[in-house]
């Protein structure tokens, strides 16, 4: 029991944060176990599934492959930081409307990757959406509702009035 805890300061969801943890811990473990932010999930802890994605300085990274120590002085954004108070991010709204979150376990990772995509490109093609999300696995949705949610959110973020696509909800007539 002689483990010495490491201590870092970083910006977490916009808040200055200090945390002490066993130095071998991954950022995923620090977030979940030492900071109580359980919104970041794990599917493999080997960098294979994308589930544990968070944004570090705006870039999507796999928190299971990053040491907590490496978060020092960086900006980390997790799913807990995506909504603005009670106001959901447009992506969260469209994921909810279209059932793009079924079990919801992979959703935090998908949402953050999608946010990174839309931060760079507010008019992504379907192929660009697929490419951006290709590192994240979802076993429930077949990805289609996720594409539709990303595209709808992008349209709304561009300021376009856009209803839910009828075929996505009722199927083709």
């Amino acid at each position, binding site marked *: 029991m002689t483990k010495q805890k490491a201590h870092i300061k970083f910006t977490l969801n916009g808040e200055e944060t200090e945390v002490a943890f066993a130095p071998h811990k991954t950022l995923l473990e620090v977030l979940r176990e030492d900071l109580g932010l359980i919104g970041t999930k794990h599917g493999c802890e080997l960098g294979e599934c994308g589930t544990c994605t968070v944004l570090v300085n705006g870039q999507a990274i796999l928190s299971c492959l990053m040491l907590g120590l490496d978060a020092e002085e960086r900006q980390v954004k997790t799913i807990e930081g995506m909504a603005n108070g009670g106001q959901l991010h447009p992506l969260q709204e469209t994921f*909810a409307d279209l059932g793009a979150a*079924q079990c*919801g*376990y992979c959703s935090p990772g998908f949402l953050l990757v999608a946010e990174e995509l839309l931060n760079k490109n507010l008019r992504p093609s379907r192929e660009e959406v697929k*490419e951006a999300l290709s590192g994240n*696995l979802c076993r429930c949705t077949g990805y289609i509702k996720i594409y539709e949610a990303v595209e709808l959110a992008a349209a709304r973020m561009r300021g376009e009035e856009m209803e839910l696509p009828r075929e996505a909800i009722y*199927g083709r007539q």
Partner: protein
Amino acid sequence: MKSNKRDAELKVVGKPFRKVDARSKCTGQTKFADDIFLPRMLYCKILRTHEPHALIKNIDTAKALAGPGVFAVITGQDLPIPYGILPVSQDEHALCVDKVRFIGDPVAAVAAMDEDVAFDAMNLIEVEYERLQTISSIEEAVMIDEPRIHTYGDGGNIHKKVSLEFGDVEQGLAEADLICEDTFFYEGNTHLPMEQHAAVAHFDPDGKLTLWTSTQTPHYVHRALAKVLQLPASHIRVIATPNGGGFGGKSDPFNHEIIVSKLAMITGRPVKVTLTREEVFYCHRGRHPVLMHVRTGVKKDGSITGMHFQSFLDGGGYGSYGVASTFYTGALQTVTYNIPRYKFQGVRCFTNKPPCGPKRGHGTPQPRYALEVHLDKIAEQLQLDPAEMRRNHLVQPYSVTANYLRIGSMGLGQCLEKVVAGSGWRNKFSHWNEQNRKLPLGKGVGLACSSYICGAGLPIYWNNMPQSGVQLRLDRQGGVCVMCGSIDIGQGSDSILAYIVAEVLGIDPFDIRVVTADTDLTPVDLGSYSSRVTLMTGNAAIQAAERARELLVMAVAEKLGVPIENVALAERRAFDVENPETGVSFAEAVVLAETKFGTIGTVGSYTPPASPGKYKGSGVGPSPAYSYSAAVAEGEVEPSTGIVTVEKIWIAHDIGKSINPVLVMGQVEGSVYMGLGEILMEEMAYRANRNVVHKFPSMLEYKSPTTLEMCDVTTYLIEDPDPNGPFGAKEVGQGPLLPVPPAVANAVYNAVGVRIDEVPITPEKVLKALKEKEKGRDARYGPDSVPSIDWPDPLRVLTPEEGGDGREMPRVSVHS
């Protein structure tokens, strides 16, 4: 079930509401099992054997227990009572007692202050084994009687043999114009839910155990815990946490659930276990590898005169749901096309691999693939259009099949029409004429149909009680709480309860508090499996809500001085339909009812109708209703690499009635995705010559479709309401997977003229078949034969058409 409302009057049902937990899921606030942290909680690690088949000679836990921070170490001696999901297969121990049966079987467990300490201690446990010969395949299992993996079953390493005959199949075949025979193999694959299984146990000072666990079947876990831990069931509370995906993989009671419960009892502290991804592969219970032989007689018009289907299942190391799985490989062949005489023989073997069980479609995707590819070959021989041939011989709605399955609504004809028209089938399929191809060589289309149950007709353990119960509590301030044992695994079952209660009571679904899957608080529902939840909990919810509605209406009618039939509930009000402005708010209606009747609580329950089949083995296959699906796949085969790319799938699903269409769409698309993974890439593969070790227990190496492999999907929802479904609804969680693998296999044939009679269709198999074709040999890849085994005399049942009563014929008269 009761639903007096016409479609036009529905305010909630059929509308694309958000799920009641959508915001939680999109903000990462849904609490899964591993998200639970309790004060003083210990962490558990489970030592799993590296031996595929061995006797345990000794386990030394002294070094592990001596480590600082280690609170308990247990072995099989601490949990000697066996359990299993089926009463007939109580063959598992939470920790192996005297032998191990596959690499990954658990032998000891540690509770320690953190995961690292637990892991280090686990590695100090010393186990001595005496190795036994391994059984690694169906072929070995039927050949090698000794050593036996289990000492029960139908002899040697045979777990279960089934032999059933409905009508005289040989006579049926004799009446045929053409008899076709085929052999297929469907490799096993696994659920791969994104959430690894996890559980937290707490044994409180008053002697009550609480287990939070990622399970699809809290009721069965409750029963298993009571049995193995020897605690009164009344002292055990199982809370199923929202499942981060299930697909059938969290339907068994699991060793880790029992282990943490025992460790919590020993240490007096909460204990958590979270499996690693590798361990999830060892839990498995996934798709059985099945070798199949089918022999069918047809007339020139494609009508079937008789069918003989044989299946050989590789069950892995334990029973699990395997007996039911075996029956399911033979049960649902009869519910799509008319099969007047039908014989089924099935055998399940034990092998030294992780146990197989129920995965989405439980036991039916394998025979469905075989049947639909077989029919494609028959259509070619008869020079019939595969869509037309199928549509001309559909099973009749509201009929009883040769094996006594009662069909209700049947929308398969409409499904076929939609996908044929939508896909442009007639402009793409060249009617078996290679000289006049409509699509370029290398591109192809394929078609298949399917059907699935909406809940199993019988419960897993024999009883006459309801399969689903719902309890409603109405609060005098207008709150409504619906309680049900069902568990949301992502399909939206919590929301379905809210939508249905809201519809009946005329309130908003988001006004309702849904409490589910807590054995202390909720009435029993058997669990989220066999596509039973919408139909069964939905009917129970309607009953509970109608009973509450009746109380409200009586009280409001009295207050308003109008006849009770004049009182309507809608838009959070109770009012006189003749003077809609005369009424009270919903909360006031509850106050009136509570004043008149006392505290307002109602219950509802659902028991499926009795099945017409009464023969031994008739318990698997009956269902209150059957969903139907048809699919067309279009794709490309690259002849130089054998790589198959599926570009698009058109799928139509007969849902009966959508309780929420956007959730139905999600289930259809997710099913297409999972079927696509199964046909193209997913496989549980083992190194047979290296101790039956799993080839790749990781998400990177177990290939599943990413966004880059997923095809486009066009979905059509067919609503042919079923009288047994709530508001006419049928299932959608599993059925739409079924037509996808055979539709893709048939498209591959259409593209390059080779039959891949083995799933998954990998590039290697396609290339081999193309080489065979080049050499002028059989343009096919797949098994050539099935093992020869001694089948028992079939249990014979006269079909309904022959005047049968659903019972087996006495064996004496059969032989006289």
